[in-house]
């Protein structure tokens, strides 16, 4: 099947098997390897991307379901050489260690801060509860998201 979609503002098209998972289209066909696979069953969230602005787990979506949609992946966060405040926040607050869950955490947090720009700590914890991290214990991820929220509120992005 032929699929046309937009990723990080760029138009892409590909011929795919109907059963090809979206995450495999991104990673193996289009070579956008920032989106990771951690469980194949939508529990870990490492594959989280945005579809029309909503976070989705790309390991449980077929590529053909993304026909005509606008996708955003971790590679789309940096704009014109400027890091997104979330990326700065994760570096400043030591919100990552092995880096494997990080792209999914960033994308979930990106969509979350759009909806809830002034979150409480509890709000953030619930928002990222579909993304597992085995390294950080989440404390610094929460701080990273708070860091970004403050920066965005101050006009950082």
């Amino acid at each position: 099947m032929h699929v046309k979609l937009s990723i990080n503002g760029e138009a892409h098209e590909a011929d795919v098997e109907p059963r090809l998972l979206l995450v495999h289209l991104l990673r193996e066909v289009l070579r956008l390897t920032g989106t990771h696979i951690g469980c194949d069953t939508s529990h870990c969230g490492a594959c989280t991307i945005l579809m029309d602005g909503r976070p989705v787990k790309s390991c449980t979506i077929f590529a053909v379901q993304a026909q005509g949609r606008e996708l955003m992946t971790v590679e789309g966060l940096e704009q014109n050489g400027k890091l997104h405040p979330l990326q700065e926040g994760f570096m400043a607050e030591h919100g990552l260690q092995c880096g494997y869950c990080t792209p999914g955490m960033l994308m979930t947090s990106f969509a979350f801060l759009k909806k809830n720009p002034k979150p409480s700590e509890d709000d953030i914890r619930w928002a990222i509860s579909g993304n597992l991290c085995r390294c950080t214990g989440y404390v610094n991820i929460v701080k990273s998201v708070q860091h970004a929220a403050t920066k965005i509120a101050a006009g950082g992005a």
Partner: protein
Amino acid sequence: MELKTTPEVGGMGHSIKRKEDPRFIRGKGTYVDDVQLPGMLYLDIVRSPHAHAKIVKIDSTKAMAVKGVLAVITGKDLEKYNLHWMPTLMSDTQMVLPVEKVMYQAQEVAAVLATTRYAAADGAAAVEVQYDPLPVVVDPRKALEPGAPVLRTDKKDKKDNHIWHWEWGDKGATDRAFGEAAVTVKEDIYLPRIHVASIETCGCIAHFDKIDGKLTVWMTTQAPHAIRTVFALVAGHVGLEEHKIRIISPDIGGGFGGKVPVYPGYVIAVAASVLTGKPVKWIEDRMENLQADSFARDYHITAELAAKKDGTLTALRIKTLADHGYTDAAANPSKFPAGLFHVCTGSYDLKAAHVEVDGAYTNKPPGGIAYRCSFRVTEAVHTIERMVDLMAHQLNIDPAEFRMKNFIKPEQFPYKSALGWEYDSGNYGGALKKAMDMIGYADLRREQAEKRKRGQLMGIGISSFTEIVGAGPSKHFDILGLKMFDSCEIRVHPTGKAIARFGTKSQGQGHETTYAQILAEELGIPAKDIQVEEGDTDTAPYGLGTYASRSTPVAGAAAAVAARKVRDKARKIAAYLLEAAEDDLVWEPGKFSVKGAPNKSKTIQDIAFAAYTNHPQGMEAGLEAVSYYDPPNLTYPFGSYICVVDVDSGTGEVKVRRFVAIDDCGNIINPMIVQGQVHGGLTMGLAPALFEEISYDEIGNIRGGSFIDYLLPTAVETPKWETGHTVTPSPHHPLGAKGVGESATVGAPAAIANAVVDALWHLGVRHIDIPITPAKVWKLLRQNGVTE
């Protein structure tokens, strides 16, 4: 040993930002599955639905008819090359692919090679295997009963399922101490099977180049050099020699011990690449990872502790049954079959101790890898911390006061434990006092007493653990005879920048940053000017890898020693340039100056340039050094954790309200990274304490084989950790550092378990095995008369 600290160059003791992060926050890391080579083939694995069964027939006809499938590989194919079995680190053997029978559910049965990932999966689903089920043994106690089916029929003389018996300590003295004791406590403690479940699973790409005969393997491994040597030893007979093997361990998405072993999938991928001459990728999925990769723990422990009437502890006696699954494939490089379990006297000045452990085979996957700890240290710490708490409660002495009374005192270090370990340094009372102050211990006890009057269940638990890390001194450790040194090689370039390579491999610990900080402090070259590389056996010096918190204790020490060698040569060059005697030069980070004439100086950058352009006659050019550091002793990090829990008497749910962790890992290289390690370690302590367990039904079906029922803590269950530290440097480490990656995982479960038992003690509850699930607590509450 005081910490040297030079902030101007990003030296030790500073929270400089990580060098790794710019690539990771952009999604530009390179993990194994990100590597894609031209013409690459894919491997998928057929796994057994049975826990114990004879293989009657493997029919590949339908699989071979799937478009894109090139081959179905079975044990019989590997048998031709004598690669169907492989040795384990514990001198046991493990199947790569079975010829006769399978020994656990999800064991590899055959592998399918295909042109795409999807075709390989289709092929695997189409392989038809006929099994003849055999009796299953999942309980190690039943495995050792007379008449139990003998599982390892491949071992000709094996007449039972007993692997080994090991004992340590003075039995006579221990038995005498128990005979004389005024008070004794005894408890059965089970530490169940758990799985590290790093978010990245395991996998590899094997690429054998038929023309130059070289094998390159990109691989999720924590120990690339050791893997290279193992491959050469195991497959030398089929032409894989060590100079023709290159192991590349790229960015690793978490390891925690699970990426130390050689799994069958790696070996099959290598064999498939050698046969086809094409790159072969094998990436396991999450269920394969949870069901078939090596497990941690599975220790059935019976412990006894003896004390005098006044509460002075005297002796410890432990008997343990270790369930190793169908083979002893423990990732244990120590000379002891139960690893470092005999550090079980913990932080206490016990005069006698005796430990016995028996290993047993069962129809489960190989166990005995670590779960973010040095070889069986969590098992040891959990046992002693539970037993000390039990004794304190039994004697009706406050558990904090009881620990203070029985701690090894600061003036007793270096301290020789009753089981023979030489603890390097410690101040256990100092850490506990700090934790008590931070959490407000006395107030919490008052609150608990008031709540108890109102029927509310609140508990306070302490764990004052001693870790043992940094494997290790060659008298106690080796891997196939390889001594457990680690290495650093530094090259300073003419323009004063440097590259340093190590035998370890970070899986998230931030080595690129912390090693650069050590070198910056030692050489005065800014950390930003030092490139750190690991994980490529063609370029890095030989080392034994990263696990057991050994990177800072061993490779960190190698960094310091190598840097000091560079500095020694730099001093000679500086003396030549300044026309001064070497002894008349004073070093401060970044430059040598002449004693009494501080403006007569040469920077390390000046000296580096001269090393290639203007060095003294008779001296070789260049400014570089390598160190292979064999540690004289292990290091003994420690800490005191205090946990407050509230137990819901209706549902049995345990909520961790507060958790204060005071760690002492000696001198600290990067406080931000150390705190991050503690946060992560605490969460991997919380996980098995409350949530994680992999169990089996009586016919060997796995329970907990996916993230649906193997419960990793999310941000919601994880408390807001409160951390702090004391600093007691290691006297034998060149930087006074000790290692910290695993302390919290080792120390935290006992604090949580102790808190829950503390909450329920007055009801008659004496012990709960982890994970402390709502169902277990609910049942105990009902059994002990709590009705709502």
